[in-house]
């Protein structure tokens, strides 16, 4: 029993990172009805810069690098929009392109090395289960970020404008909402959050140039699994995926445990009623 509880706790802590990667996806979806598949790459560039410079200045530079990358994505987004693209899927595919660019740039500039930072966190004992402060810190950050985002999206004037921009861009323009500016801002905020996730991954584990796709897909899963519209669901999605993964690696064979996150996603999606939300792109 104690082992079961331990796996659940560890999984919940691990899920914090997924939630943090899912949050920008959810936010962007709420504002622009598309997904940014470059979040894993923002996380990588943030970690790479932070590990190279080191210290607080490194962390700041890392976040700046992530935001700069996201700014490029926002320019691509605006470019596509100005040229008349309204298909959320096309924006998402373009972000795959940017992700390839960032990943490849990191490989070229830093080589194939892993980014690792030695950092000893104190640990607390909870009923005989030792938990690193770093892990708890990750969860705390994810929770704070997600709750702030939830309040902003659901209950603030800014959030109303964001949601309005997503569902009816023409109507939002007529209501004098700066739609494009808002969406660009959300891309930037997404870069910041993904950069933050990258730093947390760097400090709690380590990261290398192969990470972006995996991180992106983990975040994507966490964002979609309980419904993409709300940041709060990202936290639950991330934690649920983390717990499912931890329990599976604890109790199941390697093959089954590798399958678990995907089986979990399929299970949840198959139980979900048909989507009522007007979703990105639609059928081509």
């Amino acid at each position, binding site marked *: 029993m104690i082992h079961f509880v331990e796996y659940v706790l560890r999984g919940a802590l691990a899920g914090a990172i997924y939630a943090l990667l899912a949050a920008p996806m959810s936010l962007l979806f709420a504002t622009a009805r598309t997904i940014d598949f470059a979040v894993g790459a923002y996380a990588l560039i943030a970690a790479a810069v932070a590990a190279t410079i080191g210290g607080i200045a490194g962390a700041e530079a890392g976040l700046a690098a992530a935001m700069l990358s996201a700014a490029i994505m926002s320019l691509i987004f605006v470019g596509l929009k100005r040229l008349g693209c309204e298909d959320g899927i096309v924006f998402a595919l373009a972000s795959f392109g940017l992700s390839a660019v960032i990943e490849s740039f990191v490989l070229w500039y830093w080589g194939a090395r892993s980014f690792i930072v030695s950092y000893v966190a104190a640990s607390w004992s909870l009923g005989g289960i030792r938990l690193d402060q770093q892990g708890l810190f990750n969860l705390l950050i994810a929770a704070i970020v997600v709750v702030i985002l939830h309040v902003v999206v659901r209950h603030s*004037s800014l959030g*109303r*404008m964001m*949601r*309005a921009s997503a*569902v*009816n861009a*023409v*109507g*939002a*323009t*007529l*209501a*004098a*909402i*700066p739609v494009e500016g808002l969406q660009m801002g959300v891309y930037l905020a997404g870069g910041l959050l993904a950069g933050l996730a990258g730093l947390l991954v760097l400090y709690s584990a380590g990261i290398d140039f192969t990470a972006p796709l995996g991180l992106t897909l983990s975040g994507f899963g966490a964002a979609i699994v309980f419904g993409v519209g709300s940041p709060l669901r990202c936290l639950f999605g991330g934690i649920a995926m983390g717990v499912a993964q931890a329990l599976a690696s604890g109790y199941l064979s390697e093959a089954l445990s590798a399958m678990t996150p995907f089986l979990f996603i399929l299970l949840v999606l198959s139980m979900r009623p048909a989507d009522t*939300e*007007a979703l990105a792109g639609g059928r081509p």
Partner: protein
Amino acid sequence: MTLTATSLSAHYGRLQVCHNIDLSVSAGEYLIVLGANGAGKSSLLGALAGIVASSGGITLSGRRLDQASARVRAGSGLVLVPEGRGNLFAPLTVEENLAIALRHLPGAERREILSEVLALFPILGERGAQPAGMLSGGEQQMLALAVALGRRPKALLLDEPSQGLAPVVLDELIAAINRLRSLGMALLIAEQNVRFAAALGDRFVLLRGGEIIHEGAPAELADRRGTAFRLMGTH
């Protein structure tokens, strides 16, 4: 004159759909732009509101707006209610839709306009927490008007407000729009429903192939064999 357009043309890319249109509406006046499907009505309204590219002059209360962006025009009081209640955000609640429309105002004024609007359309008060998309067609049109009024428009452009509404709801809507006369703004309504136009307008212009081909008074529309009907060609 509150709203004037001089030699206004609308374009989609290299394709010109409205040609050298001159019109003007004064404060308190209701002008109907009549025309069949594809006559260029929506394009004309879109060009005035700045969501369709245009050339030519547009002034509102003497201020030139033809170079201004759609946002600036909306902010200056030239407000469009697009076809199909396109200024509404379906998943957002009635309250949220109104809050977006009123967000630029200071608190006291906001409350004042809100009560004014709710007095004009009492049904909206009852539906406050419902998503706009769940309202009936007529209620949605009321909300669309209410949202537009929240900007205190000097000139209001309504694109086919009658679209998709049952006759009985139409009468309610006509009554509601007539109640707006007290606000003293210039109103431009694009319509193909002649009955609706006849009941509302002070004046009408007839659009075909993107050009004004006829002007007249609503009384003319009562005659089904009159010039207006002949020119419209469809009814």
